[in-house]
C-alpha cells in the first residue's frame, strides 16, 4: 500500500477515535425543527447506555411539538433502530400504545431558537450487551403546531451514530 495513503488513513483514524462524543446533525430540509442524537462513544453496560435527543426550534416563532412518537415522551413506541456488529437489528422490548386524540398536555412548547432535550437509557427498551452498535433515530412523523394554529409535519432523517458497549 502506498505509504502516504497509509499515513492519511492512520491520522484520520486517530482523529475519529479521539472524539469522545459522536454527534450526528440533521440537514435542515425544513424550516422549523432540527433534531440531534448523541451518545458517549464508549459506555459501560452497568452504568446504563445513555443517549441524548435534542430538538431545536430553528424558526423565529414559538411552536408546539406533539410529543407522541418522539424521544421526548420516553419509550412509548420504538424510537431507535439499533444494529449490532453483525448487522442484526435489536428488538424493541418496550410497549406501543394506540391513543385517542392528543390533549394539550401532549404538546411541548419550544420558543424560537430554543431547544428541548432528553437523555434516555437504551437498556430500558433494548437488550444491549458488550459490543459495537449503530444507532439511528427512526423516522417518525413529528406534528408541529404553529402560532397561527396551522399544523406542519416533519420527519427527522439523521445519520446513525456508533457506540461501543463495554461489559
Amino acid at each position, binding site marked *: 500500500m502506498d505509504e502516504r495513503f497509509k499515513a492519511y488513513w492512520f491520522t484520520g483514524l486517530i482523529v475519529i477515535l479521539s472524539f469522545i462524543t459522536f454527534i450526528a446533525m440533521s440537514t435542515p430540509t425544513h424550516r422549523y425543527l432540527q433534531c440531534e442524537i448523541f451518545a458517549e462513544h464508549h459506555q459501560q453496560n452497568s452504568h446504563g447506555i445513555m443517549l441524548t435527543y435534542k430538538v431545536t426550534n430553528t424558526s423565529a416563532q414559538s411552536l408546539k411539538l406533539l410529543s407522541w412518537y418522539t424521544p421526548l415522551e420516553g419509550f412509548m*413506541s420504538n424510537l431507535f433502530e439499533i444494529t449490532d456488529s453483525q448487522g442484526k437489528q435489536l428488538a424493541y422490548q418496550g*410497549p406501543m400504545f394506540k*391513543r*385517542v386524540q392528543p390533549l394539550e398536555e401532549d404538546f411541548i412548547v419550544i420558543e424560537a431558537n430554543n431547544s428541548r432535550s432528553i437523555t434516555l437509557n437504551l437498556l430500558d427498551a433494548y437488550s444491549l450487551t458488550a459490543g459495537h452498535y449503530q444507532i439511528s433515530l427512526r423516522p417518525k412523523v413529528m406534528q408541529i403546531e404553529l402560532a397561527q394554529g396551522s399544523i406542519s*409535519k416533519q420527519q427527522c432523517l439523521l445519520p446513525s451514530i456508533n457506540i461501543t458497549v463495554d461489559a
Partner: protein
Amino acid sequence: MKFSSKFLLSIFATLAFSANAIKPALDVNVDVETLTNGDVNATLTITNNHKGQQKVLSWYTDLAEEHIFHITRDGVEVQYMGPHYKRPAPTENDYIKLKSGQSLTKTFELTANYDMSEAGQYDITYDVKSLHLYSNPGQLKKAERLNLASLTSNTASVYLEGLLTKGGTNKGKPDGGGSSDCIDGTCFTGRCSNSQQTEIISALAAADSIANNAVSYLNSHSASNVTTRYTTWFGNATSARFNTAKANFEAIDDAIDNQPVTFDCSCKKTYFAYVYPSQPYKVYLCRAFWNANELGTDSRAGTIIHELSHFNVVAGTDDVVYGQSGAKSLAISDPDQALNNADSHEYFAENTPNLN
C-alpha cells in the same frame, strides 16, 4: 413485636364484631343477580342491629380492596383474581361507622374478580374470615378464638350457563400459556368480566372478518392494478411494497385464526390499547377500546388489527403517525413508512369510508 401487639390492640379496641358481643352486632346479607350480558352483581348489605354505634373496616366492604366473597362452583373454590394489599394497621379513618339500625349497601360485579366463565352452580358468601389481617398464625388463632376476624353472610346461589363463542371459528387453537381462563383458544387476564369477554370474542370475530377482507383484496390485486383503497393508505405500489402489505395481512389473519391471543382488561388509562411487540400475542385493552364501536374507523376490530400488526412475529409495525389524516399524508410522503405504520394497516382493514 411492639408493632404487632399495638396492631392487635387497635383491632381489639375498634373492631365491630367485638369479643363481648353475644350475638353478632352486624347482620350481613348477600343478594346475587345475573345480568343478560353475562355479568353477575352481588349486593352486600351490612346492618347494625346493635344498640350502639358499630364500626366496620372499610376495606371489608369493598371488593376492589379485598377478597370479601367466598365463591364456589359446584363445591370447588373459585380463585379470586383481585388485588391483595399489604396494609399498615388500620387507623380511625379506615372504619365506617354505622349507627344503631343503620345499614350500608353496596353492589359489586363479581365476574371481573372471580373466574365465572364456566357453567355450574355458584355459591357466593360474604366472608372476611380469610383476610390476612394477622401476620402470624398465633395472632390469627387468638383472634379466631375471640371471634374477632369473622363476619359472614348467608350463601346466595346462582346457576350460570358459561360463556360460549358465537362462531366457534377458533376451535383447536392452542391456549395462551397455562391460563385456565380461555375460550376456544382466546385467553383473558387482568380481570376481564364475563361481559367484557363476550365483547372481546365478538370484536375478535369482527377483526377476523375485516382481516379476511383485506387478504382477499390483496389476493385479487397486484402492484400494477391497485385501487384507491390501497393507494390511500399505502401510497404508490411497487411489487416489493405490495408483497409486504400482503405478507403483513396474511400474518395478521393467521394470528387471529391460529395463534393463542390473550387479552388483558386491567388497563384503566385513556388509550385504546397497547402491546409489547416482543411479547406476542398479549393485547392490553384500555378505556377507548371499550368506548369504541365494533366496526368502522378506530373501532374495536380495527384496534385488534392495529395491535396484532405490532408483534415482531406478525408484521412488526411501529407507530409512525396516528389517525386517518396522518396516515393518508404518510402514504403520499413515505410509502415504505406507511407499510411500517400500524394505523395504516388498521385503516386499510377497516376501509371506512368504503373505498374500492
